[in-house]
């Protein structure tokens, strides 16, 4: 399932359509979102540097972690440095988002930038228009043949929402999506850092939503040992739900489990899949009028309580209060052996039992009297 996401990020957008957008959502209870983001980022960068993807480059807008972290990340993953340099740009909104360092009188104490040229420091996060134009400028710097498209990754939209309002952020993301130079765009949010309305708005804009849920839900009134176990579980594993909006208007729901092993992520197929059926949609009528073969065999085995069984035996009046036993002159006497024999025979047909109680003893056997004839209206 994560493969599906990587593939759609790699393939990018079609002509005339908006770019696919992925939202990665996590919460305090399952805090592995940053690792998932790193995983997708590094996969996409490796695709880009190998030339396998539609995008020729990637612009990373880093709010949450410093650019050097990302460069180290790529080194750790074994990506070559020079192709990465060519196709990777960072817009650094982490070091000085509000431009405070410029306002410091003592400018000599400003740190020297040890970053390579791939990172551009952005100092005015509150200006959304400037942010979007910087992203586009950085993207324009990529060279390639034909129409150059680039991908955009935003480290933490939750940080962006701290500085600007939701409509501006939504407008920025929407504009980026509709820009025909953008191949794909993805971002990470921590869903408990803002109102559910903001998460809903971001999910509305995106075409793929990947949410992380804790493996074990916390229970109220937890004991210390229970909560430690829960913390440990949830810091290493999570449930990975993906909702894909497909082009034909249908939604694809996928589910996987996620394991963290030594800072590497591993996606596994789910152990148990819940089937989800929308029960409220459909009417309640439920009748199956066909019989299966087994049911037909059972039906033919049922002994119907006709007094005339049609097989030449003497007519027996079934009392209804005693079981039928053959060769019995006195129906009031029950012989245990015959009784058990009959019960055995009947127990072979598991479901085919018909109990018939006669209305009255006066009735002649197999009479076709209509009981309604007695009515005197």
């Amino acid at each position: 399932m994560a493969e599906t996401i990587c593939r759609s990020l790699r393939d990018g957008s079609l002509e005339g359509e908006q770019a696919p957008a992925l939202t990665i959502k996590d919460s305090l209870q399952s805090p592995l979102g940053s690792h998932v983001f790193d995983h997708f980022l590094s996969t996409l960068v490796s695709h880009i540097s190998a030339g396998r993807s539609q995008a020729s480059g990637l612009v990373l807008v880093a709010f949450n972690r410093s650019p050097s972290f990302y460069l180290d990340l790529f080194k750790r993953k074994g990506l070559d440095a020079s192709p990465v340099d060519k196709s990777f740009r960072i817009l650094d909104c982490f070091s000085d988002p509000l431009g405070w360092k410029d306002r410091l009188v003592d400018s000599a104490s400003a740190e020297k930038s040890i970053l390579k040229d791939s990172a551009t420091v952005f100092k005015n996060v509150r200006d959304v228009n400037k942010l979007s134009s910087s992203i586009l400028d950085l993207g324009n710097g990529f060279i390639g043949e034909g129409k150059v498209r680039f991908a955009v990754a935003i480290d933490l939209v939750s940080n962006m929402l701290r500085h600007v309002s939701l409509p501006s952020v939504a407008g920025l993301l929407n504009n980026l999506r509709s820009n025909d130079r953008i191949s794909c765009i993805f971002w990470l949010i921590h869903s408990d850092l803002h109102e559910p309305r903001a998460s809903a708005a971001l999910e509305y804009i995106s075409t793929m939503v990947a949410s992380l849920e804790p493996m074990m839900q916390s229970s109220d009134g937890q004991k210390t040992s229970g909560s430690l176990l829960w913390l440990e579980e949830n810091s290493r594993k999570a449930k990975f739900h993906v909702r894909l909006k497909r082009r034909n208007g249908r939604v694809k729901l996928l589910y996987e489990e996620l394991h963290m092993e030594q800072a590497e992520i591993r996606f596994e197929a789910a152990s148990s899949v819940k089937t989800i059926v929308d029960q409220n949609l459909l009417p309640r009528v439920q009748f199956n009028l066909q019989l299966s073969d087994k049911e037909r065999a059972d039906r033919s085995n049922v002994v119907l309580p006709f007094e005339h069984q049609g097989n030449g035996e003497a007519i027996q009046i079934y009392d209804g209060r005693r079981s039928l036993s053959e060769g019995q002159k006195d129906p009031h006497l029950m012989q245990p052996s015959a009784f058990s024999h009959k019960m055995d025979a009947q127990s072979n047909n598991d479901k085919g039992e018909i109990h018939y109680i006669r209305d009255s003893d006066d009735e002649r056997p197999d009479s076709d009297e209509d009981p309604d004839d007695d009515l005197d209206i």
Partner: protein
Amino acid sequence: MATAKDPNPRPVRTSSSFSRNPSSPSAAPASPPVPGVKPGPSGAAFVSSGIPDLDKILGGGFLLGSVVMVMEDADAPHHLLLLRNFMSQGIVHRQPLLFASPAEDPRAFLGTLPSPVSSSKEERQRAPGLDPDAKDKEKGLRIAWQYKKYFGERQVPELHNRGIEQDFSNDFDLRKPLERQMFRTQQIDCVSIQDTANLAVLHEHCSTFLSDLTRNEGCNVNAGRIAIQSLCAPQCGYSELDWDMVSFIRSLRAMIRCSNAVAVITFPTSVLSPSFSKRWQHLADTLLSVRAMPDEDKELAKLLTGYQDMVGLLHVHKVSQINTQVPVILEATTFSLKLQKRRSLILERLNQAPVDASSGTSYATSGSCSGSSKGSPLDF
């Protein structure tokens, strides 16, 4: 009680309502019929929604003077199908149109409007009982009670009505775009609501549009159509001003009530807070909602026939009831959206596939989670 002959018998509305008797001398001279507007009982007038099935379900179409709201599903763009058909129908009938959308260039959306299906041969095949082949096949079926003779009388006027129905509502071919020349003589006003900080601009456009409609006095007062897409989309500048949006809808509703227009507003409910979502739903006269279907869901494929062709689901919550005390009681409220031959949109009642009884799980005990894990507040 004067009951005039209703030329289009519709089984949904009863015939015991008041309608103008043209033979009485005191009646005003009948106005020439406006194309695309169908008169209904109690002085109501209907315009077609662009989808003939939906018109039948709603008992005639969209009522002039009402506000239709469509609740979008965040996962699927089916509300655009409804909007496209609505707008194309207006253009085909030469009715003025106002379109507002949160895109940068709303005019681009006009390029995706479908054009009407030209021939009516396929339409006749869809109507039951009118196909001569089907009639021959049915003679072979012997039915004890002769109910067919009662049906025969109803079928004959249907043939005549086909021509009239064609004028009122068209089937649209979603694969063919509407011809450019249709746009030239049209009054189409497009507004982008994306960067606006408040709704004053949109309000201005709506009021000038509606006053222009009534200004064309004379015999033919044309019906107008307003289509607003995704009114509370998160990228609109005013999307956090909840009360302003509610006031806008209320004033739009008031303006439309006393004019000859219909407004269709679509909005994504997941983006609004639950209490405001409820307020919006109450402001609607006709309330529809579209819902996405899960893809490749084996359970659903077993439960519904025709699952492969279904694009989505349409649910009718409320049907407008202005000037009448007789409500439209629907036999079914959930319909599936299907694309017939990949081009025209049809709505069908959900048909349940025969269930395998030996599987053991009866319907009442099967999994009761809703189809989407987000748990929308509108679990109908």
